[in-house]
């Protein structure tokens, strides 16, 4: 979405008046300044020291005050971002931003995240102790809201859009959690897969769409969890939708390849003899950044890391004893069902032969300076209607999605309690209630333990369940049970001396349940290669280098094969120049090189002609086979029938396609243009409102979606962290943004350059308050009382 920041003249004067306009939104702190704030909420005095990056070091006397302070500092830095995210999730942006965001609101409301958030909050109510404990986090946010509401300190974007923040509630925190699920576990390739199978036929389909890359080692090659084989789910009869191609269904596609990395090496592989943990989650990059860095010190906590503003606790971080991080599991937890309506109003549908009423939830989308949009949201026994067909040629599709289901426990305090742990068992216990999206949580501690565990709910599925669109005519077609938590895959202190994950499949073939999803291929292999083959013991500098690694195994495997077909061909000067550039390339995606651009452009052309069978019917959404399938065919079956172009009489092989796609690629090149990788694959960090002046575009950074330094478009490493767990832990981190959510602040984007250069900040776990008293950018003391 693009928001137009232009406002009319009277609005401009309001925005730019020196008393209450944007001029008052300069950085709130003057160097060395101390401020004492009397405020309702804290039980005692809370001292917050901001360092030279504006990272708050919070000193509180108890959990209540620590949570209050976390809420307060996050709101102080990111209040508008929090409001924005909760509005995106609930489809309520147009209420404050007008018609430009209506499309986004309509799309988001179909996913019914607010419905899911309500279910989540209802569940939380069953845990009053946790709700009571974490209420101080909400109180901290609301204390800040009261401080800035209707006055000159209101954050910039509220002034720009001319609205006031509402009190923060549990629903909004739940919505942010749901938005994370929307980002990480929304996989609706069911439509494309149904079409792929219908187009290709079963034999070819199963050859081209295999679940497992044989060269890949799963996240957990040696599963130490409690075996569980009961309750195998049987495939219901006639469960699969087979009424021809599903056409014109527009659901947001997910690209292959962008994901996250985490790993931990044991003492035996570490130069210092201390375990080292590294994590770099790759998410959509934005300004303000998704993460907020903070350090919390209480009598029983000393933890530093990053949080998602709006959710209590540190999600990725470390304390004096342990370090933890996460990557997304990527299991398919969104299944689509075709709905057989029995009346034209689409309020009743057939379920197990009985007319069943859909739950109708009236939706009113308020539009600023426009008319309200009203419609009925329909919820079936499977979930909300995600796709409503304009005709009878394609069915309406309902979604069963884990993000909308009621969790089994309260997740509110998970990451706050995990910060107190000093060993694996404690960490496992505290994070065990995490519901969705499932994460590969990596762990290391000072005693030398390293481990990784799939944390979150994993549905029990029959073989291939959720791969294709299912018939929504029977309740037995939906999954309803989860793998017991004690059987979630995990490994502790494996013999190979490290644990790692890069969004590849989490479990091996011996795992007793079907496990499908969108899994990465090359990054997992690359990190395992680097960790296995290190000639000497490794230190934190090696971890930095691995996180910056721009090497692509995809290119290493495919390019020599493709080049072998054109190496002896007579080519034009232009084509020879490109070929020479590719011949001398070492498969590192360096920002200034042209060879990566040529290779990617070549593969794009090749994909278009290799999978021509799939693209015959333009109205039917399809998905090409994964990159590793192309590599595998190129390596082992260059004469495979899929390489034959259907529209020609000749029987083509990969050799023909390689040359054809290469020449096609070269013919499209404009040699007056520059083809540096950074220009072909620009990495941008956009402001959430897409205001160009507040975005950072075309950033010079190495990497690609298949490299460990996974960068593409608006995606990339959203936080890089390395922790060495010695007697005094040492840690380094950086993220592409800044601590402040205020675009007028110098702390809004001050870390981007360092991040792009692959440099890190040393992160402090110093719990000596006198240290910060002596050296801080600004100090705020929150004291109980009326302001």
């Amino acid at each position, binding site marked *: 979405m693009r928001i137009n920041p232009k406002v009319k003249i009277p609005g401009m004067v309001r925005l730019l008046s020196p008393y209450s306009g944007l001029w008052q939104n300069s950085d709130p702190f*003057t160097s060395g300044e101390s401020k004492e704030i009397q405020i309702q909420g804290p039980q005692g005095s809370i001292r917050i020291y901001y360092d030279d990056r504006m990272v708050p070091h919070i000193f509180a006397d108890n959990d209540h005050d620590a949570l209050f302070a976390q809420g307060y500092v996050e709101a102080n830095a990111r209040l508008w971002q929090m409001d924005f995210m909760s509005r995106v999730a609930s489809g309520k942006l147009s209420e404050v931003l007008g018609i430009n965001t209506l499309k986004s609101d309509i799309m988001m409301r179909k996913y019914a995240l607010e419905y899911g958030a309500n279910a989540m909050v209802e569940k939380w109510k069953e845990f009053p102790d946790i709700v009571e404990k974490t209420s101080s986090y909400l109180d901290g946010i609301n204390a800040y809201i009261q401080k800035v509401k209707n006055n000159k300190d209101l954050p910039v974007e509220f002034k720009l859009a001319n609205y006031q923040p509402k009190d923060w509630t549990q629903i909004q925190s739940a919505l942010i959690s749901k938005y994370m699920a929307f980002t990480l576990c929304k996989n609706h390739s069911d439509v494309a897969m149904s079409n792929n199978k219908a187009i290709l036929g079963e034999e070819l389909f199963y050859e081209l769409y295999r679940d497992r890359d044989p060269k890949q080692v799963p996240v957990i090659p040696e599963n130490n969890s409690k075996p569980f084989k009961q309750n195998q789910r049987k495939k219901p009869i006639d469960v699969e939708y087979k009424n021809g191609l599903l056409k014109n269904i527009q659901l947001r596609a997910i690209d292959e390849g962008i994901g996250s990395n985490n790993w931990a090496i044991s003492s035996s592989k570490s130069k210092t003899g201390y375990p080292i943990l590294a994590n770099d989650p790759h998410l959509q990059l934005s300004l303000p950044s998704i993460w907020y860095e903070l350090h919390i010190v209480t009598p029983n906590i000393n933890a530093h890391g990053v949080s998602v503003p709006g959710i209590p606790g540190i999600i990725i971080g470390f304390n004096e004893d342990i370090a933890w991080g996460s990557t997304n599991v990527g299991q398919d937890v969104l299944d689509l069902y075709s709905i057989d309506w029995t009346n034209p109003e689409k309020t009743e549908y057939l379920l197990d032969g009985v007319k069943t009423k859909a739950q109708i939830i009236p939706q009113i989308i308020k539009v600023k300076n426009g008319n309200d949009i009203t419609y009925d949201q329909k919820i079936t026994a499977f979930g909300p209607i995600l796709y409503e067909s304009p005709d009878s040629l394609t069915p309406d599709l309902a979604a069963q999605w884990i993000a909308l289901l009621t969790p089994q426990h309260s997740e509110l305090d998970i990451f706050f309690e995990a910060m107190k742990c000093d060993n694996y068992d404690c960490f496992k216990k505290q994070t065990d209630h995490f519901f969705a999206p499932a994460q590969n949580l990596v762990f290391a501690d000072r005693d030398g333990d390293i481990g990784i565990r799939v944390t979150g709910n994993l549905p029990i599925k029959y073989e291939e369940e959720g791969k294709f669109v299912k018939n929504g005519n029977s309740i037995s077609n939906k999954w309803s049970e989860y793998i017991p938590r004690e059987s979630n895959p995990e490994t502790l202190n494996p013999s190979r001396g490290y644990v790692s994950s890069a969004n590849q499949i989490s479990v091996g073939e011996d795992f007793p349940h079907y496990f499908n999803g969108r899994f990465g291929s090359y990054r997992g292999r690359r990190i395992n290669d680097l960790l296995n083959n290190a000639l000497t013991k490794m230190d934190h500098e090696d971890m930095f280098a691995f996180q910056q690694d721009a090497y692509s195994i995809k290119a290493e495997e495919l390019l020599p094969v493709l080049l072998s077909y054109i190496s002896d061909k007579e080519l034009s000067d232009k084509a020879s120049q490109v070929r020479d550039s590719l011949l001398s390339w070492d498969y590192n995606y360096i920002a200034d090189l042209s060879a990566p651009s040529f290779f990617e452009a070549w593969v794009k052309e090749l994909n278009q002609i290799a999978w021509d069978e799939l693209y015959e019917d333009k109205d039917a959404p399809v998905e090409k086979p994964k990159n590793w399938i192309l590599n595998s065919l190129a390596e082992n079956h260059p004469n495979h029938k899929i390489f034959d172009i259907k529209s020609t009489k000749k029987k083509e092989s990969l050799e023909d396609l390689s040359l054809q796609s290469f020449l096609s690629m070269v013919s499209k090149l404009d040699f007056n243009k520059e083809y540096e990788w950074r220009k072909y694959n620009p990495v941008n960090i956009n402001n959430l409102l897409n205001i160009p*002046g507040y975005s950072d575009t075309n950033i010079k950074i190495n990497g690609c979606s298949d490299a460990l330094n996974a960068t593409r478009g608006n995606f990339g490493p959203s936080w890089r962290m390395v922790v060495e767990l010695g007697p005094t832990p040492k840690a380094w981190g950086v993220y592409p943004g800044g601590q402040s959510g205020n675009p007028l602040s110098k702390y809004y984007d001050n870390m981007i350059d360092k991040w792009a250069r692959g440099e890190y900040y040393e992160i402090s776990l110093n719990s000596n308050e006198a240290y910060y008293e002596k050296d801080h950018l600004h100090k705020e003391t929150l004291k109980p009382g009326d302001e």
Partner: protein
Amino acid sequence: MNRIIAILLVIVFHLGLNYFLPWWNIAIATALTVWITRLKGFGAWFIPAFSLSFLWGVWILILDQKTGFLISQRVAALFEGKGFVAIFIPIIGCFIMSAISGYTAYLLASSFTKKDEAESLSSDHYEMTQPDLGNKEIT
């Protein structure tokens, strides 16, 4: 002297009203000043408008200077690099609003004054134009 008092008054009113009202309180501050000081003609719209827009200009400069002139660059980025918009729009807006308010207040004040004068004038005239009946008795 009256003009200096007007300059001080309009600034004091504006700064005081800022605590209760948004930016458009400049209109009220100006009107009150013009009403109280009975500024007339050109002075009625120019003096408060110039004083307040000058105040805004200096104020913006101080706020900008505090940030090492970063904030003006960042605000300018909002308007796709047109920094003058960030600086001049508020100053011009302030000037125009104050000027309109000042002149309106002057016109209103004048009309009230004229009405008073007219009333007093008409009563004098009445008295003056009454026929001098002298001591004659009308029979």
